[in-house]
């Protein structure tokens, strides 16, 4: 694990130098702001745009509770543009090491594949967690000042559930990045699969238990309704299993030594 910690340190230095530590949080702050602001001004905007054309809008129909707005920050911002941005930020996580021969080189040293993956996942996940948390927190502040107050405990539970879904996202992108060679393909597969999972959640609730994206829906529900469904615990458990499976596949794939480029 000594090597794992060394690799984490190296990843942090790398992320600081390629400025990911700066732009990723900023992007999530912007995403976090967007939903409350748009929702808040929507009646005014619609009025201004539609006023001259005889469309009447009942502004009370559009006004929302704070919890609902915060929920749609997750559902409409983080789960759409957010997923794309995270995947794009993570697509090279293993692929770049693989394509320039660094992975093969590192593995000639006394470093196990699992400590290599450990270093990669922990470091990248920490940065992603910070970005999502900051963005979500800014959204929370906006919602509290523009709409009704949302209890902090709801915010926290939703955040934790959402971060677990994000861990799945990281693990999935990691696996795809280990398997495929082109960044474009990696991004495409990851984005399609992950947003696909998220869309399926809305249409086929029956498979919620095994759908990794359903945690995002449950996070939204906690915010919107304020109730915490105990069945979520099972989903959390299944999610962990998914993540472990993804890590094992990644580990196995690299151990096949398909890292040789010639």
């Amino acid at each position, binding site marked *: 694990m000594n090597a794992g910690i060394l690799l984490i340190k190296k990843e942090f230095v790398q992320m600081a130098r390629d400025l990911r530590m700066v*732009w990723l949080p900023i992007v999530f702050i912007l995403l976090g702001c967007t939903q409350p602001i748009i929702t808040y001004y929507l009646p005014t905007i619609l009025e201004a745009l539609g006023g001259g054309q005889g469309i009447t809008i009942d502004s009370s129909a559009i006004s929302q509770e704070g919890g609902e707005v915060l929920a749609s920050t997750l559902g409409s911002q983080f789960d759409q543009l957010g997923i794309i941005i995270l995947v794009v930020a993570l697509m090279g996580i293993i692929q770049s090491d693989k394509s320039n021969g660094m992975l093969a080189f590192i593995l000639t040293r006394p470093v196990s594949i699992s400590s290599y993956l450990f270093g990669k996942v922990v470091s990248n996940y920490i940065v992603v967690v910070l970005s999502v948390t900051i963005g979500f927190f800014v959204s929370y502040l906006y919602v509290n000042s523009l709409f009704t107050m949302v209890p902090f405990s709801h915010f926290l539970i939703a955040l934790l559930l959402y971060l677990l879904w994000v861990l799945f996202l990281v693990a999935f992108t990691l696996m795809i990045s280990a398997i495929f060679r082109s960044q474009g393909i990696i991004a495409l597969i990851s984005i399609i699969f992950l947003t696909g999972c998220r869309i399926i959640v809305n249409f086929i609730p029956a498979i919620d238990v095994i759908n990794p994206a359903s945690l995002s829906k449950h996070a939204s529900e906690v915010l919107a309704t304020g109730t915490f469904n105990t069945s979520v615990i099972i989903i959390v458990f299944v999610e962990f299993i998914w993540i472990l499976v993804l890590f094992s596949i990644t580990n196995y794939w690299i151990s096949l030594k398909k890292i040789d480029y010639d």
Partner: protein
Amino acid sequence: MQLHYGLDDLKNINFMDFLPVILPFIAIGMFLVVFALQDLYRHRKSRENILLWTIVILFVNTLGAILYFVVGRKESGRS
């Protein structure tokens, strides 16, 4: 409710009412753009397509800057 409007639309109406709420948002967005441009300028010798990136960063709101950080920062002249 998923209606997306650009910032341009907002500016036409009751601008002063929006200001306190939107100011942080605009400020952070601006910061990202300036940050990207500053990085591009600082490394202008080792970057490709400087003009293209400048346009992308300035006019493709926010996403342009992200694109630059992900793709555009690969230094030229490397294998």
